[in-house]
């Protein structure tokens, strides 16, 4: 592997990791702050991708589709929290798993009813269609760089929101002691609703910007969900910092697992078993730190 290929793979790995971060950060916030395990989080990613697909055809522009898609995603998040999720705060995790599992089935079948079961593509906006040439044969698409930049900007924005604003302070306080925050006169129900909608919007947005590079297909939600679980387990529940580190780690491990070759005793381990690599990483973290890299011991 020469330096240019290596550079491309590093960029790809970081870009995939940053994309995972958008989905995983919502998952970890909803887990850490609201105590809700949300299996349907991957479905929101899928909803985002399909919204990008259908709205960009309708408007003729991916940019407008993204704006419209985020508005719809926030509306879905607020509605779901109000209708269903808010009834789960005092229930066992078991019921949260089941209800959100039911939601997955509903989202998947609605997708199948409306869009069918085919794989769709979304074109990259004209503004970002260029590639940066690295050598005579290798180049790197601008769109992927733009994706990484946007994800990074959102990550910084989230950090500022949670650490530096009054709203973020209330969210952090709500995660520690719900009743205390409520008795201080803060509308905790509204706060939770906002956090949930934020998580849904982040996952859907990730789906939208991923649509042009990853295409739009059935089952894309479950795939992302399980990888994001691994990210959250590695990073530690509720830790946005952990989600960032875990996501980048997973992105790099997964990308390099697919391009490296490794043979042990005549058996090709990589890339054949590259799908397993991230779980091996998770097992190692579990052995060393069962509460995750940035998790609280307890």
């Amino acid at each position, binding site marked *: 592997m020469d330096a240019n290929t290596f550079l491309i793979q590093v960029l790809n790995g970081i870009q995939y990791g940053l994309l995972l971060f958008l989905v995983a950060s919502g998952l970890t916030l909803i887990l850490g702050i609201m105590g809700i395990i949300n299996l349907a989080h991957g479905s929101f990613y899928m909803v985002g991708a399909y919204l990008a697909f259908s709205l960009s055809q309708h408007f003729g522009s991916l940019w407008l589709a993204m704006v419209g898609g985020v508005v719809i995603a926030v509306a879905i998040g607020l509605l779901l929290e109000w209708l269903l999720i808010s009834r789960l705060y005092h229930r066992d995790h078991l019921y949260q*798993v*089941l209800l959100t599992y039911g939601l997955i*089935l509903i989202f998947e079948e609605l997708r199948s009813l409306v869009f069918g079961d085919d794989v769709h593509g979304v074109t990259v906006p004209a503004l970002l269609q260029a590639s940066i040439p690295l050598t005579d044969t290798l180049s790197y698409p601008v769109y992927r760089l733009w994706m990484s930049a946007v994800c990074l900007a959102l990550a910084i924005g989230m950090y500022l929101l949670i650490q530096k604003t009054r709203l973020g302070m209330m969210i952090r306080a709500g995660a520690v002691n719900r009743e205390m925050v409520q008795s201080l006169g803060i509308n905790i129900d509204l706060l939770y609703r906002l956090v949930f909608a934020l998580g849904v919007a982040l996952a859907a947005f990730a789906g939208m910007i991923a649509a042009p590079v990853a295409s739009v297909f059935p089952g894309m939600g479950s795939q992302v969900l399980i990888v994001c679980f691994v990210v959250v387990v590695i990073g530690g529940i509720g830790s946005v910092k952990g989600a960032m580190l875990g996501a980048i780690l997973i992105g790099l491990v997964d990308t390099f697992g697919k391009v490296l070759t490794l043979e042990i005793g005549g058996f090709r381990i990589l890339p*054949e078993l590259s799908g397993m690599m991230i779980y091996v990483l998770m097992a190692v973290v579990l*052995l060393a730190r069962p509460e995750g890299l940035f998790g609280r011991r307890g």
Partner: protein
Amino acid sequence: MRQVHAASIVLLACLLALVLLPLFAEKYYIQLFTKMMIMAIFAMSLDILVGYTGLVSLGHAAFFGLAGYTLAFAAPQYEAANLWLSLPLAMGGSALLALVIGALVLRTSGIYFIMVTLAFAQMVFFVFHDTKIAGGADGIYIYAKPVAAIAGWQPFSLENHTHFYFTVLALLALVYALLRMLLASPFGRVLVGIRVNEQRMRSLGYRTFRYKLVCFVIAGALAGMAGYFAAAQFGFVSPDTLGWHQSGGVLMMVILGGMGTLNGAILGAFAMMLLELGFQGLPVLGGVDIGKHWQLFMGGFIVFAVLLLPHGLLGLGGLASRLLRKSKERRNG
């Protein structure tokens, strides 16, 4: 005391009905009930984890599916495997996998446990999905049902659907009885203690990790038994049999029936399979094949059940008897 009595009468009646079923039912229904009983064994194996020990596993299908693959490997191509060798092999393989996965996942608890069991099951899924060892994503066929021959003598034949039915029924009854005994034993009481308050069990001197691990391995082996017969009946295994939709489905069975009671797991398995069948049989309305989108109704039903049936179907019975008692008291007093 009277309630226990009533429950055991209902149980015996159900067993009798299952024994008599092949006398008058058609082949289709015999096979359907065989499948339902296999899923009931699967659901019971999960119930001892979820309902008794309080370990919510979202990766239980890994042990179910692995056993099916073990059967496929144990059978020479186009020939049948020997039941007495391949069944222990399949259950042992699943138990071994449960030992390895259990040793890792039991280091966590609560939400972590749910996510980690799902992730490890998905890892097993990828082993069979991405490599060519067993047909990859397409799965692998099992051409002949296992032969129950002991040194040339064949007491029954699994190729016969009635024999298959009674074999599964006998195993269902056996597993039920063994689990009842296990759960009533000191070992079972420790498991329940762990669910209620693990800290206290530990301070009483129990090494809870070992108890949980043994429970996890037993559950894995029994899931393997169910997976073995499911694969034998269907004649086909694919990565989907160990996928997470299978794990979610069986969890739903346990909870729908009412967890922590083996009866509930059996009831849940039967009810879920009948519901699935009912939803699939929905007609074409306005040009849309509703039956094809049965998962939509299943999802809606699950959401509905979580919100309105917190104690499962068995809880429905409890609710009815409570209402009855109340109205009686009102009449008497």
